[in-house]
């Protein structure tokens, strides 16, 4: 059964000049032990989707339609106090910058113990033992000593390990990782990805991995949702989406990533830029940049359609009527 189920999610930002739709009719599900990648470029709505799930949308952003279910139970309408109990206990969070997710005035041990005793029925001594175990599990050398160190005494990579330990300390069913490796050097990035993968496999945790980096997705995720202008353009197994993209945007995106082992003079270029939220065109949001666009693409917005492969894409060319109509 799906741990997380998001159905027809819509997030709006009311502004003085009218209401902007930041996330428009987004649906996906994540099963136990599965890593779902949410990939897209700046402003595509991927981080906002993560924030909506965890109940951390900053006002005036708000969910105006759709439902979010965690283990079958609706959590989108819960009050702030109920959401606070779910965060940390049932949903863990890992953010991009480990320095801002840790409190500089407390030792990492104090922060771990606080989180553990808040969510689990353990005494302070038991919690401390658990904290040391967790630090060992995320690969911090000599955890018995390091548990009493402050965040600034750790390097960037080690700090991110502490953040992962914090996210996992109450054995959550879902972890939301928003750009967890973006602030790290490449060699450290690989270490953190390997760690995240191993921990989630061992604990059966579902992961929503939000990132702009297709490489991280390819290495980590089981399935991937490609977001464009607040909508899901393509959803499918990682291998399929990377190797045989079915949406023209994903195709362009994959072609624009330079890869080692391929020699080419020029990279594929998608003309233009992603529309701003106040200027999303009617019909398919990608239509103005799409070489295949036809009249129907302006008139109607495509749903996620079956593509003949395991992935689904929001593109009319996968509609059986595409071959006939002009």
């Amino acid at each position, binding site marked *: 059964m799906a741990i997380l189920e998001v159905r027809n999610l819509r997030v709006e930002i009311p502004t003085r000049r009218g209401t902007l739709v930041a996330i428009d009719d987004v649906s996906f599900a994540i099963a136990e032990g599965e890593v779902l990648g949410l990939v897209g470029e700046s402003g595509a709505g991927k981080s906002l989707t993560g924030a909506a799930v965890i109940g951390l949308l900053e006002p005036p952003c708000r969910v105006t339609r759709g439902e979010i279910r965690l283990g079958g139970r609706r959590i989108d309408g819960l009050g702030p106090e109920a959401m606070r109990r779910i965060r940390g206990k049932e949903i863990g969070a890992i953010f991009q910058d480990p320095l801002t997710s840790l409190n500089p005035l407390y030792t990492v041990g104090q922060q771990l113990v606080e989180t553990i005793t808040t969510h689990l029925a353990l005494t302070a001594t038991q919690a401390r033992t658990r904290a040391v175990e967790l630090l060992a599990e995320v690969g911090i050398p000599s955890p018995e000593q390091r548990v009493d160190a402050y965040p600034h005494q750790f*390097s960037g990579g080690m700090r991110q390990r502490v953040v992962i330990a914090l996210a996992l300390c109450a054995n959550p069913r879902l972890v939301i990782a928003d750009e967890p490796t973006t602030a790290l050097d*490449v*060699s450290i990035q690989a270490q953190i990805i390997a760690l995240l993968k191993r921990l989630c496999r061992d604990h059966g945790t579902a992961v929503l991995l939000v990132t702009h980096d*297709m490489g991280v997705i*390819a290495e980590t995720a089981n399935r991937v949702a490609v977001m464009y202008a607040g909508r899901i353009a393509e959803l499918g197994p990682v*291998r399929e989406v990377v190797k045989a993209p079915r949406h023209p945007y994903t195709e362009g995106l994959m072609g624009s990533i330079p*890869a080692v082992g391929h020699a080419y003079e020029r990279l594929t270029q998608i003309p233009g830029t992603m529309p701003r939220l106040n200027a999303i065109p009617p019909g398919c949001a990608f239509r103005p940049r799409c070489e295949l666009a036809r009249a129907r693409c302006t008139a109607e917005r495509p749903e996620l359609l079956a593509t003949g492969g395991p992935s689904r894409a929001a593109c009319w060319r996968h509609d059986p009527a595409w071959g006939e109509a002009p």
Partner: protein
Amino acid sequence: MSPETATPRPLVEARGLARHFDVSAGWLQRALNREPRLTLRAVDGVDFAIAPGETFSLVGESGCGKSTVGRLAVGLYRPTRGSVLFDGADLGSLPTRAERARTRRRLQMIFQDPYASLNPRWRVREIVAEPLKAFGLARGREARERVAELLVQVGLSPEDGGKYPHEFSGGQRQRISIARALSSGPEFLVCDEPTSALDVSVQAQILNLMKDLQAERRLTYLFISHNLAVVHHMSDRVGIMYLGRLVEVSPARELFRAPLHPYTRLLLETIPDLDMSGRERRPVQGEVPSPIHPPPGCPFHPRCPWADARCRAELPRLLPRGAPAVACHGVEEGRLG
């Protein structure tokens, strides 16, 4: 004709280049706590040469000194030791003001962050025209026409000259930076992580533009990046830096096909696998040590699976091995294979 005409004279050459920074506490603090002075050896003896029309890339992780080399190469920093030769002349000891200006207009820089490198209070046309004014190359109508041409060349329109930087997206701002860098008609551009702040589809547009401009104007690039795939796409030759030193310099093809230095090998392991071959990558163990207290001997030995007693004691020199050059005792002794 001298026999040297076979290999063209390098346009840019670094010789024993070093730059140290004093990172000590104030003298009173030091006196009270009996602390010694602390020196950060950001760049510590780097040699390379870049031929005209070539793209030479520097790769490494944060703090390896690659950006400092870039700044030294255009004269933004003065070297602590060694020198940068541009077209045969030492950048640090150009005798007259006029000669310095003549040389400087031939080298320019593109920075990483297009939000910080453009003055928000200036219109785009003023930004792009600044080098023209600073070097007295054009003024009035001629300058305006040159700016309009440059904007078109980088894929903007002449009307964009009247706008302010905040009216543009990140990719468009990087185009403005490029137009500014090109306005003095330089031959050599230092590009310090020019696409790291951009989305991949925008990155592709900028990289394509840089290649087109290089072909049109026969530009020479010093390209600085931590992204190995981008470096692979852009470079003719690559230098891998670790803790202020070059550990391997090699033609791009050979480097990616057959890396020699253990650090290069491990870096290549970290490239995400977009071919989905299912290859498990072996992450590099450990982290980069502090450049204030670099380890003795080979700076990479604490992370190197092949390190032995010699590596822990003696600093390896960059030695040629065919076309590539590598600084590793293990490679020199043939024990890495």
